[in-house]
């Protein structure tokens, strides 16, 4: 931390310069969750929430995210070296809450599900559309077949597994490779794809797109007039604007996407070391704003503008219900590429999606393993999970376990394509669980950890931590309750999802108490790990 005004620091003091605002900004935008929302929003949430305005919803989501950014920036400034939700919840509330929400639900359910979906997004938004459309534009059936294979169960599993192996290798190799690849590969390619996608979509019109769609559908589906057939399945309707659906979607976008910029906590060690609420908050806002205003709004608005609301509505229906039958999946990626016949442009539009899914997979793997590492060091998980690679000094056992869990979900989800929407919704539904625990920790922290709170720079912002925690909690509760109570969101979850959530909770609790009992026999009381020690 830098020398405060009005004090004198020794030269030999270990003081480092504050991270600059510029560094914080750049760091934040390189760690935005890229493009994932576009995969989720279309077709599923377009189908569930017709009439929702995606642009307004994204802005709503970003505004709600400010509370989450303040929450995490506060924790980061209060405890700059503590590192992550696991510690915030353990210290703020109880180690059992953090074990439940972080280990049991997040590491073993929510994160691997997101990894699975994100692996699919790389394929469905990037790889498969490019191969298919490059084949259609060049008359190369082999490429079209490759694209179809990639989008099928075996293709998705194979490609996602390949990404997983690469991500595992990168993580075992060390965080510097993860961080550098994010800055020098992901970031530029995301920018390129974002610009090209927006340019393609805004330079077409619904009538122009109708011609393109019919042309490509003839090649891929062997049918003519497919545009009219598709929109007629929903009565050629352009849903009227719906404020309620827009708000619902905004909350989902917030909790599932723009909130998640804060999950890059492991990379924020240097900014956290600056003990700087402002730097952290700016980094999070930069990431969220970049995601919203560069990776989501231009592409989503362009999609509706260029393709027309009637078509988007019809394509969403086809994407979820499967009527009319099509030989290709009319997803966001492939429909965007239908606006051009230039293969090079198609590649530039697709490459961002290809790498985005991979990099998110890589980041999730990092975070899953770090939570396992923290749990192991804290004595609630086996010690083997904190054993490092001799060569690379990374927690290899935790990384391998994380990858294995992801691989199991790959097999579960990819080979049940008719259940994909179900798992997609479970991923979104369990998305809030991590924030749920941390929001509760934030609300109560000024009282449960008085001494840390009162001595931190955050205490001068009276009520900030508690209020931001309350807002975040409200958003999360909306998703958790809404998905089982709001009619529009009921499909396709049902009782099974609830049972899954409860089962993971029960198994987590059982493990916690059983392992704590085992540790007690070795002279370790896990209940003491975050026990506040009174100084007097």
């Amino acid at each position, binding site marked *: 931390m830098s020398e405060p005004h009005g*004090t004198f620091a020794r030269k*030999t003091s270990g003081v480092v*310069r504050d991270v600059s605002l510029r560094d914080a900004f750049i760091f934040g935008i390189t760690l935005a969750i890229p493009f994932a929302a576009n995969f989720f929003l279309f077709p599923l949430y377009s189908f569930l929430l017709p009439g929702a305005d995606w642009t307004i919803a994204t802005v709503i989501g970003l505004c709600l995210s400010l509370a989450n950014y303040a929450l995490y920036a506060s924790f980061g400034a209060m405890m700059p070296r503590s590192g992550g939700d696991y510690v915030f919840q353990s210290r703020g509330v109880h180690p059992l809450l953090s074990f439940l929400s972080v280990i049991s639900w997040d590491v073993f359910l929510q994160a691997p599900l997101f990894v699975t979906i994100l692996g699919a997004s790389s394929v469905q938004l990037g790889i498969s559309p490019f191969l298919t459309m490059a084949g259609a534009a060049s008359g190369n059936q082999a490429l079209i077949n490759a694209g179809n294979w990639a989008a099928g169960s075996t293709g998705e599993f194979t490609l996602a597994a390949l990404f997983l192996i690469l991500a595992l290798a990168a993580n075992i190799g060390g965080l510097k490779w993860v*961080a550098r690849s994010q800055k020098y590969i992901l970031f530029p390619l995301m920018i390129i794809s974002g610009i090209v996608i927006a340019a393609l979509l805004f330079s077409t019109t619904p009538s122009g797109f109708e011609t393109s769609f019919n042309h490509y559908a003839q090649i891929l589906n062997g049918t003519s007039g497919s545009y009219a057939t598709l929109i007629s399945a929903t009565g050629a309707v352009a849903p009227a604007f719906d404020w309620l659906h827009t708000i619902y979607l905004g909350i989902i976008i917030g909790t599932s996407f723009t909130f998640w910029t804060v999950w890059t906590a492991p990379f924020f060690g240097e900014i956290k070391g600056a003990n700087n609420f402002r730097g952290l908050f700016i980094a999070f806002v930069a990431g969220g704003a970049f995601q919203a205003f560069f990776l989501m709004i231009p592409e989503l608005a362009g999609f509706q503008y260029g393709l027309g609301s009637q078509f988007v509505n019809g394509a969403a229906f086809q994407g979820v219900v499967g009527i009319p039958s099509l030989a290709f999946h009319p997803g966001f990626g492939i429909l965007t590429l239908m606006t051009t016949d230039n293969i090079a442009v198609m590649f530039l539009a697709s490459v961002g999606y290809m790498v985005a899914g991979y990099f998110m997979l890589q980041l999730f793997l990092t975070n899953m393993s770090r939570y396992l590492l923290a749990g192991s060091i804290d004595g609630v998980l086996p*010690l083997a999970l*904190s054993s490092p690679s001799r060569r690379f000094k990374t927690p290899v056992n935790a990384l391998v376990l994380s990858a294995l869990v992801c691989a199991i979900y790959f097999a579960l989800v990819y080979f049940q394509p008719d259940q994909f929407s179900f798992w997609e919704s479970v991923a979104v539904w369990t998305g809030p669980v991590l924030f749920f625990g941390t929001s509760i920790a934030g609300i109560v922290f000024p009282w449960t950890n008085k001494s840390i709170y009162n*001595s931190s720079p955050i205490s001068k912002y009276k009520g900030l931590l508690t209020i931001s925690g309350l807002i975040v909690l409200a958003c999360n509760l909306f998703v958790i309750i809404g998905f089982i109570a709001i009619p529009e969101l009921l499909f396709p979850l049902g009782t099974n999802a609830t049972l899954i959530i409860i089962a993971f909770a029960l198994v987590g609790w059982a493990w916690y108490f059983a392992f704590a009992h085992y540790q007690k026999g070795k*002279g*370790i009381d896990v209940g003491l790990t975050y026990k506040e020690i009174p*100084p007097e």
Partner: protein
Amino acid sequence: MGKQVRILFTTDLHGSRKTFLKFLKALKIYKADVGIIGGDLTGKVVVPIVKTPDGVAVAEYAGQVQVIDSDAKRHEVLLSIEDCGYYPIDMSKEEMARLKSDSQYFTTTFQTAVSDRLKQWTDMARERLNGTGINVYITGGNDDYLELDDVLRASDSMTFAEGKIEMIGGTHEMISSGYANITPWKCPRDVTEEELYTRIDKMAQKVSNLETAIFNLHCPPIDTMLDRCTQLDTSYDPPRPLIGVDASGGSVSVRKIVEKYQPALSLHGHIHESRGIDRIGRTTCLNPGSEYSEGILRSVLVNLGEKKVDSFQFLSG
């Protein structure tokens, strides 16, 4: 399990009154047999408390201006400053100006404040440990002035362990050193790797039973889970952290020593953000990290059996 010794180890308290008091309390709460403080006892910042013409005093630190207009307020502010590991010093504006311009005066003032704080700590330890039967061993770290050794040596409540072999729990010989390899800040006990090796090796050679020994070495071994830190750009003063670039801040010599002698346990600090456990051969190496400036006591409780670590637990209280 054979006879077990329960050790509570903390490090890098950097002058934080609150964290030191927590350590003394924690010894009883965690039922430790022995306490070990691993060095870097010196805080980093002097906070002038300056009287203004209208009779109140003003202190400025951690981005806040505190106006001291009563004894109660003064007590509150002093404690708050000391809890951060800073040193509150009453001074006039002229003295403050001299602190800025006269580096020798600054050093003398600082060292006096540090020594006074350490003496307070030895008094606190005497008061709180009296009758408990718990021994506390303490050394300086690389960030500590050499003059502090005299203060620690004179303590009757804590055992100054630097450069000596102490017997822990009747079974385990412990060697201690607060020296470290050269850092960008060229601290008082930063030495070359060769000197560091010689210094520690000399002690290790005198240990009669290395199988049960404890190495209490402030600097962690290089290329382990205990020495991960951010790469610094030292062309700036103070150095600038390079975002996303990881570095290894530990010592080659310490690693060689642990590899060579293979004690049962090695305890380290120095890299505050690198809480972790690693193994070098049969040696369990631990660094509890440090969060002194937030008033959080980071420590590790070790249940040490006759020849190996039976179990350990990282604590954050």
